[in-house]
């Protein structure tokens, strides 16, 4: 055989390899598998040391957690088949299932639970989440007792898959730094799926874990998560059916397009836990915004109805307070600042800022997070025209990138800013940080950058954090919300319009409060897609 023939054979072989590998990716759409497309690139897969949507989605598939939640904020058994909160609220006992094993075959024991909880307390960015935990006792392999320094009603929500992945102690407990642990990229958990392949920044593959402790689950054999940098490309793939699940769609026009597609189901359920809020924040220490009347006047002029109805095309739920719509703790009976220019003018006059000869009172700047024009820039520009009606000249300050914006806001170099902040389930985890005067920390974004300080609010938040009676706790939070809305350190506008899109024919959709950040073990094909 001549060399040329060898080369020819080689070329044919290469071609065959290329086409088969291509087919294997394409096939996933037809067999008992689903393809997810996301623009979010996970740094790694260990949700115990990393917050954010990019890590939480795979981490919730790979790792099981003590509890999971339904779509109505009720805790459900997961690794813990039952749990008791002591009457004094100072300990929580978890009774673990006995048949749970990690992907490497080792059983899940209370040792692993104790190790994981302490690891999360030490490493997770949400420092308030497990602040009350002192230690975890392990009287026997299937019982873990969490000891608390004070009652912590938020602990049950903190045991969700997105926030408390149970790590195998025999893998992660080797003394290496958890934030840079090599197993974060080759994770071993006890969740419904195991990570079999990760091509950095391109895709990762989750395969069914045969010995998953819940019988009959997961229902899918395989999930391929494709990382697509261009949201538009992801959208087109979804429309063509190459992709079966498109999570975290936030563009109003994109949502519209997906809703019109006949082969796609779109839902905004699954974000109550995250509780994303879009708001307008004030620098309450800077003149003239240090006067509550000025802030109230701006709120009266801003016109939430127009922003929600027109700029968000009605795709977003209006938000009137610091706790996101959909949370059982949300207080609806607060002043909604319905648009009222006369009242705004009155307040500004009373605050000592009369209209000048040219019709203007004073000038302010407005910043916004760059990158999401519909949610951020358009609203900032709209507010400029709105505030002009009451004599405030607003100058829109564009930031070239996220760090520039974060730098300005966290160093109090701003007047007004648009912002998007997540509630993360319980107020203790994601709400307190914005309002506690002890969290006025210069240089840290998403701390109390408004520099808002009200002793009554501090007191209410501290009391609510340790209040074990749900009714009393709700009452404390409702008073907190009324005060904050009246003080207007922030004018609340809407819940960020997040949507998940699914191919028609998929059943068992993740519509619980944590949505795509909960185990996808019930997702299955009711009608398999045509090949």
């Amino acid at each position, binding site marked *: 055989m001549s060399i040329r023939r060898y080369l020819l054979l080689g070329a044919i072989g290469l071609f065959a390899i290329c086409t088969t590998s291509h087919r294997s990716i394409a096939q996933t759409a037809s067999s008992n598998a689903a393809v997810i497309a996301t623009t979010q690139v996970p740094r790694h897969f260990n949700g115990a040391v990393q917050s954010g949507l990019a890590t939480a989605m795979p981490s919730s598939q790979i790792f099981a957690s003590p509890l999971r939640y339904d779509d109505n904020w009720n805790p459900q058994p997961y690794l813990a088949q039952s749990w008791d909160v002591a009457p004094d609220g100072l300990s929580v006992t978890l009774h673990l299932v006995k048949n749970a094993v990690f992907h490497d075959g080792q059983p899940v024991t209370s040792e692993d639970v104790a190790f994981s909880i302490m690891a999360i307390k030490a490493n997770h960015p949400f420092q308030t989440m497990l602040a009350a935990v002192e230690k975890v006792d392990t009287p026997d392999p299937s019982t873990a007792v969490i000891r608390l320094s004070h009652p912590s009603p938020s602990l049950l929500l903190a045991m969700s898959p997105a926030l408390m992945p149970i790590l195998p102690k025999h893998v992660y407990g080797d003394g290496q730094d958890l934030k840079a642990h090599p197993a974060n990229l080759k994770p071993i958990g006890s969740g419904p799926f195991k990570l079999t392949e990760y091509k950095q920044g391109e895709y990762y593959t989750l395969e069914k874990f045969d010995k998953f402790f819940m019988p009959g689950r997961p229902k899918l054999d395989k999930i391929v998560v494709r990382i697509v940098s261009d949201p538009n490309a992801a959208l087109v793939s979804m429309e063509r059916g190459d992709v079966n699940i498109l999570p975290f769609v936030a563009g109003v*026009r994109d949502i519209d397009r997906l809703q019109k597609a006949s082969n796609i189901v779109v839902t905004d359920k699954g974000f109550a836990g995250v509780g994303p809020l879009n708001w307008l924040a004030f620098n309450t220490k800077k003149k003239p915004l240090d006067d509550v009347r000025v802030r109230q006047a701006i709120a009266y002029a801003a016109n939430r109805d127009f922003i929600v109805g*027109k*700029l968000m095309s009605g795709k977003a739920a209006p938000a009137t307070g610091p706790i996101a719509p959909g949370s059982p703790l949300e207080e609806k009976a607060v002043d909604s600042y319905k648009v009222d220019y006369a009242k705004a003018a009155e307040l500004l006059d009373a605050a000592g800022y009369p209209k000048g000869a040219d019709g203007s009172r004073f000038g302010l700047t407005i910043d916004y997070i*760059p990158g999401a*024009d*519909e949610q951020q*820039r*358009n609203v*900032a*520009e*709209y507010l*400029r*025209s709105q505030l*002009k009606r009451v004599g405030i000249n607003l*100058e*829109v*300050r*564009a930031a*070239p990138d996220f760090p520039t914006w974060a730098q300005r806001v966290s160093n109090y170099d701003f007047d007004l800013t648009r912002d998007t902040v997540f509630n993360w389930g319980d107020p203790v985890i994601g709400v307190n940080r914005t309002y506690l005067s002890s969290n006025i920390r210069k240089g840290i974004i998403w701390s109390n950058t408004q520099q808002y300080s009200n002793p009554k609010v501090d007191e209410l938040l501290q009391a609510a954090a340790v209040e074990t009676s749900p009714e009393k706790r709700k009452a404390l939070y409702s008073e907190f919300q009324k005060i904050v809305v009246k003080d207007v350190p922030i004018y609340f506008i809407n819940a960020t319009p997040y949507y998940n899109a699914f191919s028609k024919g998929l059943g068992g959709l993740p519509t619980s409060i944590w949505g795509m950040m909960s185990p996808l073990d019930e997702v299955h094909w009711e009608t398999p897609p045509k090949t």
Partner: protein
Amino acid sequence: MTTLETSTPLTVESSGQPARRAASPGRVAFRQFLRSPSGVCGACLLIVIILGTAIGPVVYPVDPLDLVGGPFTPPSADAWLGTDYLGRDVLAGLIYGGRASLAVGAVAALITIAIGLTVGALAGFFGGAIDAALVKITEFFQILPPLLFAMVLVTLFGQKLTTITLAIGAVSWTSAARLTRAEFMRLRNLDFVKASRAAGAGDAYLMLRVLLPNALPPVIVSATLAIGVAILFEGGLSFLGLGDPNTMSWGLMLGQNRNYVLDAWWAVIFPGTAIFLAVLSISLVGDGVNDAINPRLRRRM
């Protein structure tokens, strides 16, 4: 350039007709310009555009940043050219945006020529070490990709119309500098310059009164074209999201509305057409001026 190098012998050749010398060079050039149909068309178009942006606000006093109706209102009796994604009037945007775009173009072109003339004249006149240093600096600026460099400048110093104008000027002066330098180097050894020097003219006098007027024609053409390039540049920066959000300009309208082209084509097509017509008219005028002050072409006609 090549045409100009042959200009000296040509003038000598045609110097046998003293009657032609009676008119001033400016008037001759103007008369010549009127004979170029494309130049005249361009000039007419440009005058219409400038008048529109100058008188427009008097006839149509609508603030381009104000909301006049619902978002995405198609062209109608209330808003002749429709409204954009916030409900701002597109026609008002065109009028006020035209002022900003033309001003950016003109000022940036002035900056371009001012820097280019200074650097080029010094380098071409003195030669030697000064020339070497200035050419190195010019080359340094020339190898930077202009759009990227301008983006960096705007990002660093803020998205303000003045910053954008300065940035455009700062990145586009190199060709004017090279042009001027070449003209000065060619002219400085000609006999009339030597004669002036022998008559006791100083460096400053030679540069400003003797060399500069003779080096100007190609620079004027390049300045005219620079206006069009600067308008396009502003459009490009705005398109990439680096426009000044507080001043309406054609580029800003285009850049902000492009995401909504399927919902409101009118908010994209009209500013796009305006930029196209403005740049086209300026290019035509530039060509006409080139024809008018280019002696070889003049003789051919």
